[in-house]
């Protein structure tokens, strides 16, 4: 019998079985999360299955955020926010409010998730937690509502698609370019029902905020989760960031003889910056193919690339410069702590001097609700994760996806620009910790 993948080991541990791909298991959930869009439906399910006197399986490991329509852009959104506040207060769960940030940023920054955890979120980008070695996966509201009551949920143990990357990335090339290339290669549904696993010397040398980018967008190839084996980098990041003691002695890695659905190998040095053309993330091409495309709006933010390091890369490029007159830039930090870092380090000033609009932390215009919705004919270059028809507004608008560096370079010229033509920086995880109070 072959060895086991990381995904199989994680679900074996959480289900108390010898789980193999294809098995159905009921597994113990460590952390459950929902937000202002998916929470209200999950609360209905919870109330329905528990009656009026329901108790959460673990209030201290249940987290609710208000991030999608925050601040409220209408009465229904405001009512949803109140529903989240009331449910969280009634049941003693953790709750983050308007301006605190996007669920996936908050859960990592605040130390709610750690290596080996099984994390379910009523949000498809819950795959993000795989970047620190947790089995993070997105579920619907009925799944979440029942799990809030029982602390358990059923899973089909996924096969694994492994992406092995070796070598050094070129200047101006980042994790975002890697994941757009992976999605382009396997397709938008190429990892459906499967786990993605990222490995190789390039991945090992990536700081945690970059690993989170890879895991975050596993869902854009249909992935159930996107895993990076936790290592000393994970340990030191989490200890520095959250103050939690991290014990990696029980952490998992895939066996050498694990059975993969397929292994895709890459030479990091050969990868050019990538841009996904409208209207699907799988339309990834080298930036040179679309260079010169005129841009109306630049959007920096989201659970994919709204971290401090991402925004700082853009600010470095725009320092002392002005955004091209044909373009406007919207910046939405992923969390309040990113926002505060931007204020403390001058990034905020640099960006506003260059002409950017900076909004409170949250999801911003990513899903087309508010804070920078696109009109007919608008073309946007975004650090976001999705560019479906109408995703950021009008069905007649179009969205290109890229790394923050590509957005920064493109802001200078008002057209898609190869970031290798400007000076770009690369940050390790300590830059975020530097100014912590």
């Amino acid at each position, binding site marked *: 019998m072959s060895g086991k993948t990381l995904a199989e080991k994680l679900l074996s541990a959480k289900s108390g079985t010898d789980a193999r791909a294809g098995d159905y298991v009921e597994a113990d959930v460590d952390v459950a999360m929902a937000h202002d869009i998916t929470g209200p439906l999950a609360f209905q399910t919870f109330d329905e299955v528990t009656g009026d006197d329901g108790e959460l399986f673990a209030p201290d490991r249940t987290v609710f955020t208000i991030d999608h329509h925050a601040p409220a852009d209408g009465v229904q959104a405001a009512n949803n926010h109140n529903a989240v506040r009331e449910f969280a207060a009634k049941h003693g769960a953790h709750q983050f409010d308007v301006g605190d940030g996007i669920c996936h940023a908050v859960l990592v920054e605040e130390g709610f998730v750690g290596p080996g955890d099984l994390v379910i979120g009523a949000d498809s980008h819950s795959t993000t937690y795989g970047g620190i070695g947790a089995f993070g996966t997105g579920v619907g509201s009925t799944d979440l509502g029942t799990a809030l009551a029982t602390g358990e949920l059923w899973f089909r143990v996924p096969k694994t698609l492994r992406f092995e990357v070796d070598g050094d990335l070129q200047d101006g090339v980042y994790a975002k370019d890697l994941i757009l290339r992976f999605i382009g290669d396997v397709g938008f549904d190429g990892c*459906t029902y499967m786990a993605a696993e990222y490995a190789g010397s390039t991945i090992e040398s990536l700081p945690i905020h970059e690993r989170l980018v890879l895991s975050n967008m596993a869902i854009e190839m249909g992935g159930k989760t996107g895993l990076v084996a936790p290592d000393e980098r994970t340990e030191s990041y989490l200890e520095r960031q959250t103050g939690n003691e991290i014990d990696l002695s029980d952490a998992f890695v895939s066996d050498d003889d694990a059975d993969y659905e397929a292994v895709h190998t890459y030479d990091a040095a050969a990868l050019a910056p990538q841009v996904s053309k409208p209207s699907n993330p799988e339309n990834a091409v080298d930036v040179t193919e679309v260079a010169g495309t005129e841009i109306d709006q630049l959007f920096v933010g989201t659970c994919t690339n709204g971290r401090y390091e991402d925004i700082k890369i853009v600010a470095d490029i725009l320092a002392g410069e002005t955004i091209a007159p044909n373009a406007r830039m919207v910046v939405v930090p992923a969390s309040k702590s990113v926002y505060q870092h931007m204020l403390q380090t001058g990034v905020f000033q640099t960006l506003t001097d260059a002409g950017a609009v900076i909004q409170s932390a949250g999801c911003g215009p990513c899903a087309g609700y508010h804070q920078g919705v696109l009109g007919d004919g608008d073309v946007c270059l975004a650090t976001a994760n999705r560019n479906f028809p109408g995703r950021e507004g009008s069905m007649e608008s179009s969205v290109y996806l890229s790394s923050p560096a590509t957005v920064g370079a493109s802001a200078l010229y008002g057209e898609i620009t190869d970031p290798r033509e400007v000076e770009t920086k690369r940050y390790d995880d300590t830059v975020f910790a530097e100014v912590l109070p």
Partner: protein
Amino acid sequence: MTDAFAGDGGRPDPAEPGRAWVFGDNIDTDQITPSRFIVSSDPDELATHAFEDLRPDFSEAVETGDFVVAGENFGSGSSREHSPLSLVGAGVSAVVAQSFARIFFRNAINLGLPVLICPGADAIEDGDEIHVDLDAGVVTNHTRDETYEAEALPEFLQSLVEQGGLKAYTKAKLDG
């Protein structure tokens, strides 16, 4: 919540023929339920906006017992249960697609909305009259006098459905 939401007798019977509304590949949740409408969790209200940008005539013209038919990767994108819920609210009898995105598939089963993986679904044209035999896993096209085989639900899911869906299953577990 309406009866339909509970996945019980309020649902239309897929064995009864209905109109096929045919969509293409990679229909994502933004196209099923545009994000500006998902501040609501009410199936009836969501139904009035189903496919609103993609196919503005759908919500007005769809009738209880109609079918949604699609290509590959139906329901991709977000985890919003509002998407299958809008189809429940619209009275859609079942969704037949060549393949589904994982979370949509899970959500639909949890809501009691039958979903069938049917590789031959691309032979169905918009407006065809079809019905579905859920037990046999067969889609019948009355307009073209054809049948297409669908994949059977895995045993585990079948048992979940037979126990009345995830909510009923969970209630029983909590009471047990």
